[in-house]
């Protein structure tokens, strides 16, 4: 609960910071400080120290799964601030407001990680989405940004409509919004319940951009200002997955046979479309958008399996994927030319940054010794335990395809030449933060227990 309260208060503080703080440097420092405070508060809560006690009447459950994910989201946000906050200045004039909106998104993330009632699921998803609509359109004079914002907004509210209809039908069938309140008579499952379940499944697939509902993703990610795409594609998507996982594990786990096949098909389709389309992209940003769809396919396997492996794996996946993608985007924002050719000869000019990029790309592709490998491994193991070997074989094949487009970037950086200066101001601080994030990626890949340990103690 403290995580939620403090991130909301931080958002309000950032809004007022725009009045009192004159320079962008002080605003940035305040945001980083508040982000650190949030991390400390969440960590204390994870250790059982509550600064404020609030009775949520059973509507929110801050268990170790929720708190650990909130911690991952907050650390990713801190990394995002450290790497990319300087580039936010270029987007528009409302610098403190961007930070405020990001803190409000974190409040939404806290709700959607911990909800125990469908009402809170709805509120959490909306609190995450509405600031994002604004951030997507932050570059007001840029038509592409306008389009992205409008498209995201229309798709987002359309899927909210579907989700609400699903919730209403579930309420009609069961008379409660409480996740724990669903009792099933397995021989006789009401039609309303199945209809509601399907609508919720579709709406959540929209939010996480799983396959038949992914069509908005590339356009929105491509059109939004790159700094915010980075946040949109990582923390928010992972939070939507955590909400998806909690919803299906806690309320529909008992009637798994009803939806298992459908989720399996969605998973396979997401893996296929994401990976195959990513191969044909020329712009690195668009490639990353399709790669985020492909990674969503892997995360869908956790929803398919729903066992304890899947739970651990999803958290590790959220951390690995968020850190790697935020790192790649942070470098991409600084590039002059954002196509694959724009990276030609990058390793010669920025050897250290190129090396960290390689680690991030290896992690996304799932090469051993990186966090990406272990998280993919856990997803596959969870699915095997669940008994679907074909999905696993297909996922491994698709992971092999993904190596192609990730390595294409490595090839451009190391084996092609270019004489122009490629990147704008890369400061030493930026470099060291990138190295730190890359080190975390490796540490999580070798000792995943550093993270998953907290799930049980």
């Amino acid at each position: 609960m403290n995580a939620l309260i403090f991130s909301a208060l931080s958002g309000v503080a950032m809004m007022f910071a725009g009045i009192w703080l004159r320079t962008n440097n002080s605003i940035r420092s305040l945001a980083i400080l508040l982000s650190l405070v949030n991390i400390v508060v969440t960590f204390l809560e994870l250790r059982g120290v509550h600064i404020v006690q609030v009775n949520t009447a059973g509507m929110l459950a801050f268990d170790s799964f929720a708190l650990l994910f909130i911690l991952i989201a907050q650390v990713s946000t801190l990394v995002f601030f450290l790497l990319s906050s300087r580039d936010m200045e270029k987007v528009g004039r409302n610098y403190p407001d961007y930070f405020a909106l990001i803190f409000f998104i974190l409040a939404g993330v806290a709700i959607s990680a911990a909800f125990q009632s469908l009402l809170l699921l709805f509120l959490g998803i909306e609190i995450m989405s509405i600031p994002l609509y604004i951030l997507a359109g932050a570059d007001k004079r840029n038509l592409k940004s306008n389009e992205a914002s409008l498209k995201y907004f229309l798709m987002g509210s359309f899927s909210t409509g579907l989700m609400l209809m699903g919730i209403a039908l579930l309420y009609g069938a069961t008379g409660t919004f409480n996740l724990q309140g669903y009792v099933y008579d397995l021989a006789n499952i009401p039609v309303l319940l199945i209809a509601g379940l399907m609508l919720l499944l579709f709406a959540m697939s929209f939010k996480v951009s799983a396959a038949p509902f992914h069509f908005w993703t590339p356009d929105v990610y491509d059109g939004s200002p790159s700094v915010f795409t980075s946040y949109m594609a990582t923390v928010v998507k992972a939070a939507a997955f955590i909400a998806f996982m909690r919803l299906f594990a806690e309320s529909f786990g008992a009637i798994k046979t009803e939806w298992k096949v459908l989720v399996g098909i969605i998973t396979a389709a997401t893996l296929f479309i994401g990976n195959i389309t990513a191969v044909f992209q020329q712009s690195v940003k668009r490639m990353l958008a399709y790669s985020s769809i492909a990674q969503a396919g892997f995360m869908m396997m956790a929803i398919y399996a729903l066992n304890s492996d899947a739970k651990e794996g999803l958290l590790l996946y959220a951390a690995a994927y968020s850190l790697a993608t935020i790192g790649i985007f942070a470098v991409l924002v600084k590039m002059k030319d954002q196509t694959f050719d724009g990276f030609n000869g990058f390793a010669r000019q920025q050897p250290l940054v190129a090396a960290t990029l390689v680690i991030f790309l290896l992690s996304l592709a799932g090469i051993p010794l990186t966090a990406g490998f272990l998280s993919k491994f856990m997803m596959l193991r969870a699915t095997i335990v669940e008994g679907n070997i074909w999905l696993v074989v297909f996922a491994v094949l698709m992971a092999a395809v993904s190596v192609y487009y990730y390595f294409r970037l490595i090839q451009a950086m190391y084996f092609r030449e270019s004489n122009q200066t490629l990147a704008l101001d890369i400061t030493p601080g930026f470099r060291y933060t990138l190295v730190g994030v890359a080190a975390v990626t490796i540490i999580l890949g070798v000792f995943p227990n550093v993270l998953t340990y907290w799930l049980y103690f």
Partner: protein
Amino acid sequence: MPINYYIFLSLALFTIGIIGVLTRRNVIIVFMCIELMLNAVNLLLVAFSKMHHLAAGAANSTAGIEGQLFVFFIMVVAAAEVSVGLAIIVMLYRNTRSVDINFLNRLKH
């Protein structure tokens, strides 16, 4: 009145909303259709709330109240969404002098 009537009515409204979102070209009308979808849900929630209230009988006088509470939250969130959405539409209009949704297809290249 049986609950089925309410279910059919709100599903009809909801479907009209979906069809409107998928077929209309004017962003404002698409937007109104989304609101129609949300209001169909509100109607359904209120109907279900009454149904659960009647089913619980006199013993439990607060049964079904959460459905009506949910409606208030939908209204508040819809208002927040409208304010952001209209701001986006105004921003778009300032740049293009049009509110036609075909504009969105330009992103695909």
